């Protein structure tokens, strides 16, 4: 299988019950075309690791923006996120239907825990969450005092798949992100067994300067072309 595949081929890689990390923040930086195809695939029982569940409507219109499609189609069994308040379907499925389990993690810890797995670290020692209910999270392995200050030891987070999205991806697989769409895409690309990257545009090698590559081609297993899909 070549690195450059169709969206259909890439979606077939994801089995029922897989854990997927999806880059993006309220839909910005989600791999929109891939997620749309995944939402129509019938794949179920997914663990979704994403900052949020996006929003029912996109900023430029459209129903169920980005990962909100996966929630709407009830493909998510477990959601690990930092904020879900903008997608009321999460409350519906988790509090009323009780079909969705949600774990909440502070946003900075979430980013760092994903980075920690990708960077081979044993955990994250952060002051964030000390004295709060985060201490009782299954993702918190305890509290440690280091040189007079308390820190929580937070577990690294990994996934079977990372689904990332870049504005430009070159023919080697190097990724460049536009605006603040890089958000969680950068750390997630390091922390999954298989990384699928959606390009708005596939460009020639050299169009992204080697200094300006933000996710290296060596991290990217598959590239799909998504265009400006919303």
């Amino acid at each position, binding site marked *: 299988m070549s690195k450059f595949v169709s969206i259909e081929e890439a979606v077939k890689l994801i089995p029922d019950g897989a854990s997927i990390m999806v880059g993006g923040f*309220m839909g*910005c930086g989600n791999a929109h075309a891939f997620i749309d195809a995944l939402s129509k695939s019938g794949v179920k029982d997914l663990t979704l690791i994403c900052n949020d569940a996006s929003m029912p409507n996109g*900023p430029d219109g459209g129903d169920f923006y980005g990962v909100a499609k996966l929630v709407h189609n009830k493909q998510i069994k477990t959601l690990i996120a930092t904020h879900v308040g903008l997608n009321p379907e999460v409350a519906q499925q988790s509090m009323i239907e009780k079909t969705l389990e949600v774990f909440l993690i502070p*946003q*900075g810890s979430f980013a760092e825990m994903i*980075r920690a797995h990708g960077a081979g670290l044993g955990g994250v020692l952060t002051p964030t969450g000390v004295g709060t209910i985060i201490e009782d999270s299954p993702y918190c392995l305890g509290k440690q005092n280091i040189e007079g200050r308390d820190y929580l030891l937070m577990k690294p987070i990994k996934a079977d798949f990372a689904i990332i999205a870049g*504005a430009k991806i070159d023919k080697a697989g190097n990724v460049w992100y536009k*605006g603040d*769409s*890089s958000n969680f895409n950068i750390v997630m690309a390091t922390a999954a067994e298989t990384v699928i990257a959606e390009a708005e545009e596939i460009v020639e090698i050299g169009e992204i300067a080697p200094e300006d590559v933000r996710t290296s081609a060596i991290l990217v297993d598959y590239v799909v072309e998504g265009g400006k899909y919303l």
Partner: protein
Amino acid sequence: MMDRDQMRAFIAQRVAKELNDGDVVNLGIGLPTLVPNYLPEDVKVTLQSENGIIGVGTVTDENRDARHVVDAGGRPSEVAPGGSFIDSATSFGLIRGGHVDATILGGLEVDAEGSLANWIIPGKMMPGMGGAMDLLIGAKHVIVAMEHTAKGRPKILKKCRLPYTAINCVTKIITEMCVLDVRPEGLVMIEYNPEFSIEEIQAATEAELIISPELKPMC
């Protein structure tokens, strides 16, 4: 007596005095977003959006690009000239690492120990803390800007009853009634709004207020 908009403007105006030229500032939703309107000409701050903007700019019809640039509320946003975009790990590294000078946010409850509760009400769906816990422990100056009471009930308590967002983090509380410094000995009232008497302010506050010897009117 101020109406609600006047009250919010009054608080925002006072909060603006806490910011210094060159500060990097993170603003919570609601009232805090009014603060930049009251900065004097010679005080330029860099607004930071924790999802990845250093130097938040102004969205126009021309530069709007919601696919690639949003603020921490998921709304279309923009970077100002001289600003930059960063990824989430870098952004929260800056936040936890003390590179944000001030964060201004509201609270459901704040207490005499400088602990804050503003993210969940038990029994209701938890929206999630987002970046609030990190901002509270990381920003050098944590300013709670809020109305003094909620439907007449005190929000400034001896000890928070709602689940904490972070403990021992608030440095200043600014309401329409007063300005409180959070110090090891407790909440020290350093300014008050002369529309209210000291007794009225204390009556609207569950925590015991220490009156600063240098107490002066809010302005």
